[in-house]
């Protein structure tokens, strides 16, 4: 990888998102360690506990690698590992639908769009992020505030003793809920998506 390819295009929001994500994972792990909940205990299966730690560590490590990286595509691949590990954690908790949707929407959709966008919009194939000290300071400050808030919230909250595990048959209940109790929010979100689609079509329209 030669330096002649490096471009100086700071993308602060990416870095910020990465920091945010790592903070959230740190907070999650802290919650798991401090509150002794959320972690599958031995009685719910030794294997589940092992897998929980493997995937939690994987998500955390990948998140840190996003933070440490400068190469956007590599960061996207690390993001893929973060999303995959979190989906695996959802599977461990019996939330199959959520896990699969995580794969379809985030890994299969948004991540592809991200890579696609980077590949299409950059002249050089090796897109690098060069962060200014000012951005590091801002990101660190925001991250710190978030972390303090989250950790504070986690320690204050009274967590249930029993780990909540879905029964693995969630999709029917989710569907029923979306079409009965939560019909209005569901429709509002779909209208929002429609607006976004119309906007995208308007932007992509040929000027004639």
């Amino acid at each position, binding site marked *: *990888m030669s330096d002649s390819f490096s471009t100086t295009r700071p993308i602060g929001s990416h870095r910020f998102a990465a920091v945010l994500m790592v903070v959230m994972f740190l907070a999650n792990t802290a919650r798991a360690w401090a509150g002794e909940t959320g972690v599958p205990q031995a009685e719910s299966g030794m294997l589940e506990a092992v897998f929980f730690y493997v995937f939690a560590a994987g998500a955390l490590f990948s998140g840190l690698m996003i933070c440490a990286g400068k190469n956007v595509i*590599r960061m996207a*691949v690390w993001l893929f590992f973060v999303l995959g590990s979190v989906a695996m954690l959802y599977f461990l908790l019996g939330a199959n*639908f959520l896990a*699969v949707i995580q794969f*379809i929407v985030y890994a*299969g959709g948004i991540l592809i769009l991200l890579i*696609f966008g980077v*590949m299409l919009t950059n002249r050089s194939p090796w897109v690098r992020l060069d962060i200014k000290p000012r951005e590091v300071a801002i990101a660190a400050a925001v991250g710190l505030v978030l972390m303090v808030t989250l950790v504070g919230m986690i320690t204050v909250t009274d967590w249930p003793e029993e780990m909540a595990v879905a029964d693995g048959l969630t*999709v029917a209940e989710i569907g029923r809920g979306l079409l009965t109790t939560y019909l209005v929010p569901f429709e509002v979100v779909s209208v929002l998506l429609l607006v976004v689609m119309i906007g995208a079509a308007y932007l992509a329209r040929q000027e004639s």
Partner: protein
Amino acid sequence: MTQMSVPWKPGEPVEYRGVKALIVGLSKVVYAIGRPILSRLAFPIFVCSVFGIALLVFATTLLFGFVDDRLIETATNGPELGLAGGELTVAEIAAGLEAAGVWWTGLLKYLFWPVQYAIVRDIIISLGIFCFALVTPAFAIWWERKSAGRIQSRPGPMRVGNWHGWAQPPADGIKLLQKEDLVPADADGPLFRIAPYLVYIPVMAAFATLPFGSYWVFRNLDVGLLLILAMLGIEVIGVVVAGWASHSKWAIYGAMREACHMVSYEIPMGMALLIPVMCVGSLSLVDIGGAQDGGWHTWLVFRNPFTFGAALIYFIASLASCKRAPFDLPEGESELVAGFLTEYSGFRWALFFFAEYTAMFVVAGLMVVLFLGGWHSPLPASWGAQLGDGVIGRAIKGLIFSGPALFIIKGYLMIFVQIWIRWTLPRIRIDQVLYACVQVMLPVVMVLLLCNTVWELFFPPDSIVAIVFNVIMALIGAVVVVSFLVVMARGFINRRREVGYLAVDLMPGG
């Protein structure tokens, strides 16, 4: 230091020393013993292995018939259906074997004692799935080459293995394993190395919920269909990363095309898959397959005109999703060298091809489960219920009425259709690919979805109109299949007159 001339590398004797000399010496012994056996007995070995596989199917039908019984009992206890259900005890295994009509349980129950632990069953089943996913590409590659040969009036591979080149895929595999693991100097090393796994692992993960039979499924998830769709979707990431990391124009173009057409074909594919889901009312592949057990007229493809259209659209989109011709633009040999594979060689290149051929089986299996009756034969499964629970009865039920063997046969038939299309249709341009998706398939599948909703609302399956349409569709389907078979048989009987003696004698089974 010894000088040796090896029979498979004619010419000057080569110097080998130390461990290498030992390995070469041993290889020479194996070669000397194995070559005459293999070259003379290849056909008997092939026949024996076919019979062996048949016997294995028989044995597994027997064994898993008993597992079926166990699991039907445990199925009500929790969401974890499938072979890896709850824990069993040795006594339960013995009782299950006795119920299956096996009388020598005294020894067998101890042979099967590890099976009582769910994790042992998980490992066994994972290994089984892995083996199946290794054998399928090997067989499909040989089959593809032979079919391509037939379609292009040439015999295809004929030499390796002495029987119609049956050993060509293993030979290719050994060759590819020996090749140097090349990473271009300008490539992004780690990403270049990891990309083949990003393609292969999702495809393997799709097998986790692909049912081979009503209980022949690793995990019967309530979102099984979505999981397979997700796995086919994230396969793209590997291809795009491979193309990007290769740092080559051709590879980047290939990756761009892949991302482009995969992201667009996912939409008609997902919408076409909604139609069988709507008909059955479940996202679980086991439920969808199980709903088609009443004979061929209950297969979802014949349910109404819209499910037939959905099957067609899904099949086209599935060709695009595993990069098969006429959608093999990411590779596009004629214009892109080899597309995203340009810089790959050796094992990593082989992994991409394993992934492609395994994905072919996954999408074919999905088609079979969703539209073509799953693991059921064209005969109603209720006829098989009269056969009883004896050994023979179970075997007949497993092989003729509903069982994994039927699913695999149907899946391979769908693979053959994919091969057939690849060698018959020309590749289309990228703008035609996107036009076909966005402006043809997407509106069509939307209309199908809407019409199917209205149809299911106004003509439930037991109404007169639905039955009439179902019968008409099923009869048309039967007539088409039968006339196809007649044409095939006529061609086979007159094959010497049609294509000449040489071509016929070079055909397996000719």
